């Protein structure tokens, strides 16, 4: 059965940043220079083709964009300046919107005003909420930062963290499930046995933690930066989700603090590096910046900076009031950043990428099995 082409999908993807994909004339250069492109996952050309032709269903089912790390080799050598790397990036944004069950992602990516408004709204709600909470249920006085009578007791914030984390995780899980359905579940060509799902599941945490595939790019620096960023972020996540109270504890928990400093330095360093790159447009990766990239990076810098500032104000200068104000400001950045970015925008790729590697592995195995004669026999048996 023939698939219907849609010459207008390209217009939609333009909103996600694919501004040059129409220039591609399919010489195959990009797929061949890409160190990750190998059978059965040939990209970026093929994904670009689906996009150009408007084969929406095919495009929504591709794993390839998640296998791309945007090293920029393809864009640098593209004879038509069709920016394959950026196109893959744009497809990732579009895919994020496709996976998202709420439809908010679509709204945010297509309109930076909507995203900014959402961020501001959540920020205001967070600020107002914590202020009210502090005044009503907390210590009541902005002058106390930590200990009993703290304006925002660590234990309460911790509970809030877990509620927020749980909600976001649930949303993300729903998105991941939809990703599975679009890329693997509905695809009749790949039949993945249940056992494979179990035995290969280790790939998800492996890729999540190590980002090892990224290292296969010709230039190692982007991987290093990315790794530092992710490691810092994870450290912070662990600290906040598990050790928030000990961070706030009056006698300084040196070990926790040491990790905190390290993570903060990592976050600030990498994000500032990324911002500088985007500002200078140094590499193909940085030449094109979708508005959402800026929102994300600025928020991250802001959160890291306010995080360390409130810490410094309290620990080093003993300015409790100022620390509390900055803490609320910090939360006003952190909450919207997490609420918007994790399930609906850029941050979600932390989940999608390792998942995609996992699915890709399953696909590869399924296809290999189908191709080999033994597999061919086992298929009717399974049916």
């Amino acid at each position, binding site marked *: *059965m*023939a*698939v*219907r*082409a*849609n*010459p*207008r999908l*390209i*217009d939609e993807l333009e909103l996600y940043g694919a501004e040059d994909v*129409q*220039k*591609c*004339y*399919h010489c195959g250069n990009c797929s061949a220079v890409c160190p990750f492109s190998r059978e059965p996952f040939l990209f970026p050309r*093929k994904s670009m*083709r*689906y996009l*150009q*032709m*408007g*084969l929406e269903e*095919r495009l929504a089912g591709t794993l390839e964009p998640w296998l791309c790390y945007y090293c920029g080799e393809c864009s640098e050598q593209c004879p*038509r300046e069709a920016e394959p790397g950026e196109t893959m990036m744009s497809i990732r944004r579009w895919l994020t919107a496709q996976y998202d069950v709420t439809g908010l992602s679509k709204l945010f990516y297509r309109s930076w005003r909507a995203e900014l408004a959402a961020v501001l709204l959540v920020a205001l709600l967070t600020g107002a909420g914590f202020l009210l909470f502090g005044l009503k249920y907390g210590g009541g006085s902005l002058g106390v930062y930590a200990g009993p009578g703290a304006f925002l007791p660590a234990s309460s914030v911790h509970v809030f963290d877990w509620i927020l984390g749980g909600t976001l995780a649930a949303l993300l899980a729903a998105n991941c499930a939809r990703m599975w359905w679009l890329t693997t579940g509905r695809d009749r060509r790949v039949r993945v046995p249940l056992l494979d799902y179990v035995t290969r599941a280790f790939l998800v945490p492996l890729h999540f933690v190590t980002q090892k595939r990224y290292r296969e790019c010709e230039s190692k620096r982007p991987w290093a930066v990315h790794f530092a960023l992710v490691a810092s972020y994870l450290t912070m996540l662990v600290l906040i989700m598990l050790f928030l109270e000990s961070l706030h504890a009056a006698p300084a928990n040196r070990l926790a603090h040491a990790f905190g400093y390290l993570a903060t330095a990592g976050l600030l360093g990498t994000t500032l590096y990324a911002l500088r790159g985007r500002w200078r447009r140094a590499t193909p990766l940085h030449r094109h910046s979708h508005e959402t990239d800026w929102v994300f990076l600025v928020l991250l810098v802001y959160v890291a900076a306010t995080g360390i500032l409130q810490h410094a104000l309290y620990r080093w200068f003993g300015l409790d009031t100022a620390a509390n104000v900055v803490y609320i400001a910090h939360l006003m950045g952190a909450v919207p950043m997490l609420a918007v970015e994790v399930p609906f925008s850029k941050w979600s790729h932390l989940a999608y990428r390792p998942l995609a590697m996992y699915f890709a592995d399953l696909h590869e195995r399924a296809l290999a099995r189908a191709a080999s004669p033994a597999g061919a026999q086992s298929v009717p048996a399974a049916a």
Partner: protein
Amino acid sequence: MSRPPLPRIGVFVCNCGTNIARTVDCEEIACAAMEWPGVVVARAYKYMCSDPGQEMIAEEVREKRLDRVVVAACSPRMHEPTFRRALASSGLNPYLLEMANIREQCSWVHDDPRAATDKALALARAAVARVVRHEPLEKRFVPMNPATLVLGGGIAGMTAALQLADAGQPVTIVERADRLGGNVARIDLTAPHLDSARELLLGRLARVSMHPMISVLLRAELEQLEGYQGNFTADVAVEGASRRLEIGSVVVCTGYKEFDAARVEGLGYGRLPDVITSFELELMLKRGRIEMADGRTPRTVALVHCVGSRSEEYHGYCSRVCCMTALKYGHEVKSALPGAAVVDLYIDMHAFGKGCEDFYRKTAEIKTLFLMYGKNAPPVIRPAGPKDDCNLLITLDEKLSGEEIEVPADLVVLMVGMEPREDAGRVAQLVNISRDKDGWFIESHPKLDPVATTTDGIYIAGACQSPKDIPDSVAQARAAAARILAKVAKGKIEVDAIFAEVDAARCSGCRICGTMCPYGAIEYDEEQKSSRVVEASCKACGCCAAACPSLAVRARHFTDEQIFAQIEGVL
């Protein structure tokens, strides 16, 4: 038939690099030749046609007082003129040369070195036997009529005419239609610079109409062409009346016609009202109304390349202009209908001309969707169903994605290829030129001589020779004019020394030869009661010589004696 006394023959065998020497033992031929009667020198050399090779021949002629030369090398169609010149430069009559074709008809077609060498030996031996019977022939000169007849008033014809007329030479354009301009008049803008075709034509048209040296015959057709280069007589029928023109040369610029798209069943042309040809779209563009049959404005316009071209079933060749024309339509449709989507279905994108690749990129940048289909697997067009939000659906096997897809479209434009006009065969016969397997006129050599034909004085230019775009047609038309101007500038032309002659003493006056001659070149002398050949009209086919019952007609350079000797030689 007596052998001439003591011929002094030189045999020169060319290795042609390794082209000949790889299969034919050239040294062996040279050695063997020394044994043949009359041969005083035989040599093999790497490139006989090169300067030193020719010099070698000339030197041997002078030193060994050769009076006959045999060159065993490539086809005489290739280098006979070269070696004739070499003979002439050493003071020998150029017709005392015979060539043995041991390359095209020997070394290149045989693998076995022994058999090939044997065949080459036979051919060389025959050439030696024949050359003994050669006689010195003199070229003659005939006056060159500076007037030119241009067949066809399209862009090529007008260009050639203007070029000649601007040089002060009289030209007559014979155009079958009732206006000049040909197919270019049917288009609006030209690719890739989107220039106005109207302006291009208007300029030419104005100059042609106002030029004192050009006369234009519209609704006119060539009926007969007689004579020979420099001195033709053409009968032209102009609106029923016949006119006789005296001319020196003819430029054939009869152009092309478009392929009949209805022949490709699956495209639905003629069946589906919204499937149109490129020329029909041009008309819409000129009128400013790109519309569907029901008057609605199309939301998606599809362009299908290679309709009738590059296919096993229709024409195997590429029509050369359609790719760029299709890209032009991409721009034009987007300009006239900013909201419309354009889909372009192609096989390979032939954007090879100056500025064309750039144009291709720009067309892609305005988001034309390019879909690639396979050769011999044309897309199929069918009407869309009531639920579809389009008028037509095109199904194709898309090569770059590997998907079988269907594309919605409201209007489909078929890029029809070029094919020879129906009357090309008649024209070819009238002016005595050949056509290739596709029906295009054949040039005398694609690289050496792209505008001349096998008949002297007849030139071809433009798309009647093979599909061409405007700049290439213009260049070729001017090239044809250059040839004619060169001859006109000299005022006279050489006529080949090869023609038939009648031995009046032997002629019985039966007049069989006269009935055989296709050119009416044989007159009958009532007084002498014998036939006589008009040398300038004779084209040396030798048909009369074969038919003469009393052996009175001699076909010079192809006499019975020469051919008999050659037969003995090859066996």
